[in-house]
């Protein structure tokens, strides 16, 4: 029962991109990774249960992360993706929602490979919760300027 509860409590489990989180690259000085889960005030404010980001140099991580993002995106119910020179440059996926304690948990996955800029990097943003697609987009667009706990 405990195992089932754990699995249900963590909707990100089962996704390919889960393999880049969880501290796998915590010793890599080129990587920035964040993970918020549980009863954080920031999460509650935005109707979220998990928020995670990963940033690493494009040259090192694009080939690792692109297949994972595309594998998860293959099951998406909504998507916006762009390729350039045969590489995935931008992706936004609305992943299939999951049920937890009788409630629908919406899941969103963002990816960008900004190889054209001065410091090329790959960034993955994943979050899940009751948040609607419109509010998810608004959160990403306004969060840097409006971030409050």
């Amino acid at each position, binding site marked *: 029962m405990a195992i089932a509860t754990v699995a249900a*409590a963590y909707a990100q489990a089962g996704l390919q991109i889960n393999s880049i989180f969880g501290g796998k690259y915590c010793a890599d000085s080129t990587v920035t990774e964040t993970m918020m889960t549980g009863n954080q005030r920031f999460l509650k404010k935005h109707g979220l249960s998990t928020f995670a980001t990963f940033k690493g140099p494009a040259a090192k991580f694009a080939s690792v992360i692109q297949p994972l993002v595309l594998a998860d995106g293959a099951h998406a119910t909504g998507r916006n993706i762009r390729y350039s020179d045969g590489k995935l440059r931008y992706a936004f996926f609305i992943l299939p929602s999951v049920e937890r304690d009788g409630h629908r948990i919406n899941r969103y996955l963002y990816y960008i490979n900004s190889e054209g800029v001065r410091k090329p990097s790959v960034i993955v943003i994943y979050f899940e919760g009751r948040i609607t697609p419109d509010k998810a987009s608004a959160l990403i667009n306004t969060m840097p300027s409006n971030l409050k706990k």
Partner: protein
Amino acid sequence: MNDRIDLPTLLALLERYYECSLSEEDEHRLRGIIATTPLRHPAIDEARAVMGFRRTHRVAKGSFAAGLKVYGAVAAGLAMLVAVGITVQDSYRQCDPGLSCIAYVNGSEVTDEDVILRIISEDIREFNDGVAADNESMLDDLDDIVPIIDFYESESFPKL
């Protein structure tokens, strides 16, 4: 905050709870109300799920044994929540189990929520900058295509 609360007031408090506008003391009291209130509403069920409380059946008012069951269920729920939290984080975090707010920056671990929020904000700012640059690149590509489309739609393009 009164434990004998009516439904509209309770729903309003729940809204404030999700907006994080309750004081910690009021939030603590609200959790107590949510755990024991006889009121029924989907929002209350959802709050119980969010707060980690689960009730499987209604309890007769004034019954000591039933009251014990409620508190027992709450205690068991809290214990399970703690156990689940530890288990989830333990299996999920290889580097530092037991934390629900954590970051790794340049090989160092960060657990301060404010610092982590700033890191997240910076990552998203960089993400948005990347998206803007990608949009400009796409517009440049479209600029290259526009003359071709114009030519195709012009009189000088041979009719098929």
